[in-house]
């Protein structure tokens, strides 16, 4: 159970003056600006829940995760993770949680993969039986065998993340924080990680808190989302609901079999024309994607179709424009 009450974090940022003269001035007088990265947010997460934290760049998602995991000290407010304040009891907290940063690694770069697992076993005092049981499971599901004795620096991004997530789960944490876990990965690798996280959540009743830019991550993994913007919660609730209420703009990319200089649309507009490939934007209430493609299929030769859902940025823009 995680309880966040009026949590805020303010950073002190040096206001740099520009140019050489400015740089010299900076040496003698410094102006600081105070940035409110997280402003007075409150929410709770139940044990075993999968929560998505989404928002544009610089919204305060990572700062929130860093306070919850004990890395950053809040400026005010309080977070309780299973009864303890993580940033005040870092070592006690560390035994019960795990953090995975997509852009960083806790594996030892120059050493074979298994060395990092062995270190984790010692550091977290994992009993031999549990260690073996977990390792066998991860080995099988994430196929760690193929790169087990290779130095981490030689692993692909997908392989590294498989190892990273496995090592993070070795000590049976109650909560896992994942900050952009699938960043930079190809579709197959992403899917594998997602499936593994879903299984882990079900079989171990572990709480997952995820931030991601990839809406598919959130859609597939999280039952509930919190949208953060400018350090504040702008939405909290069901993911399907925001999709339904706010993801009004959809884009269909159609690849035609022949060149058509002009195409007649029942609804929507062509927003990008790349010859055979055209992007058509339409609103949910105008009609469905199926109807649109059926109508087009009757008149034109179509080779391929894909649908792009609204990006998080445009959903947030809509929330602002139309209110909750």
């Amino acid at each position: 159970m995680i309880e966040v009450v009026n949590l805020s974090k303010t950073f002190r940022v040096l206001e740099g003056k520009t140019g050489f003269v400015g740089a010299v001035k900076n040496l003698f007088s410094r102006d600081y600006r105070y940035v409110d990265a997280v402003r007075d947010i409150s929410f709770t997460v139940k044990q075993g829940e999968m929560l998505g934290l989404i928002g544009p760049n610089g919204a305060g998602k990572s700062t929130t995760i860093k306070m919850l995991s004990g890395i950053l000290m809040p400026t005010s407010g309080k977070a309780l993770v299973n009864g303890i304040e993580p940033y005040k009891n870092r070592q006690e907290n560390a035994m019960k949680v795990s953090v995975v940063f997509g852009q960083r690694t806790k594996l030892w770069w120059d050493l074979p993969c298994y060395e990092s697992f062995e270190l984790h076993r010692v550091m977290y005092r994992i009993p031999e039986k549990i260690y073996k049981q977990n390792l066998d499971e991860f080995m099988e599901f994430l196929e760690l065998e193929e790169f087990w004795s290779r130095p981490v620096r030689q692993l692909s991004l997908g392989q590294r993340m498989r190892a990273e997530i496995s090592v993070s789960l070795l000590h049976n944490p109650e909560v896992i924080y994942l900050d952009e876990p699938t960043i930079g990965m190809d579709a197959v690798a992403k899917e594998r990680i997602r499936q593994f996280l879903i299984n882990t959540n079900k079989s171990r009743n572990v709480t997952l808190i995820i931030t991601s830019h990839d809406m598919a991550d959130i859609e597939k993994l999280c039952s509930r989302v919190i949208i953060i913007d400018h350090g504040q919660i702008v939405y909290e609730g069901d993911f399907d609901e925001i999709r339904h209420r706010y993801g009004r703009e959809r884009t269909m990319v159609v690849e035609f079999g022949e060149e058509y200089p002009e195409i007649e649309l029942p609804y929507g507009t062509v927003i990008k024309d790349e010859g055979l490939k055209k992007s058509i934007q339409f609103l949910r209430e105008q009609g469905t994607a199926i109807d649109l493609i059926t109508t087009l299929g009757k008149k034109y030769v179509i080779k391929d179709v894909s649908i792009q859902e609204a990006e998080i940025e445009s959903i947030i823009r809509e929330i602002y424009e139309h209110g909750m």
Partner: protein
Amino acid sequence: MANFVTVFRLAYMNLRTQMEYRLSFFIWLGIKVLSYGSEYLIVWMVLDRFKGIGSWSIPEVIVLWAILQLSYTLAAPFLFHSAGKLEQHIVRGSLDYFLVQPIHPLANLIARNFSWTYSSQQLMSAVVLVIALNASGFDWSLPKVCFLLLTILGGISFYAFTFLFGGALNFRMIHGGRSIGGNIRWLMDLTQYPIGIYPKQLQAFLTFVVPAAMINYYPAVYLLDKQVELFHPSLPLISPLVEIALGQIGIRLFTKGLEWYQSGGG
């Protein structure tokens, strides 16, 4: 106990990492033997021209110098690389993982960056110290030997303090703490000679402001039974304790500094 096992494991993995780059490892080891060897030689040659410094004979001055060197070479493998790495971690915000592991971030940092290439210098400094002590007529009695060990521990604590103080500043200033904490060569240059030969003001500075003279000068006064004028007669005996206390203050400052850690952009 479990923490000790973890620290050893980290240090072992760090050694393995260094050995992955075998050539670099041996080049470093070689360079350090050469640079320290030549330093000993220079001091020897310079002192050989004099009968002594002030009321201190040549072997006694070498005792001062060897205490300084031994405590430095014992502290450096823990601190030297860690200081550089800490600044990098703070600048890049990569200290994050240290704060979500069940071991003190300081122990984690030091064990990961422990340098194995100082062993030759430690051995050289220890041998020189023993020879110089013998030549100075040192009384190898139990209390004096214990005090000698305490003195070395005090020296290590002083260097640890400079590193930890620099680290704590780094959390606030991001850059530069390392240069404040790490540049202690000038202090060592001053205190490798008996500070009694300096003006009173400088003596006071090295005793009360930056107590570097407490690493070697004051303990040596007791160890070698020197009859010299002191600011206070208790200074020789309390010096190692003051240095050890400084080390403790350093740890407190560092832990406090962690609260300022701002991490990196996410």
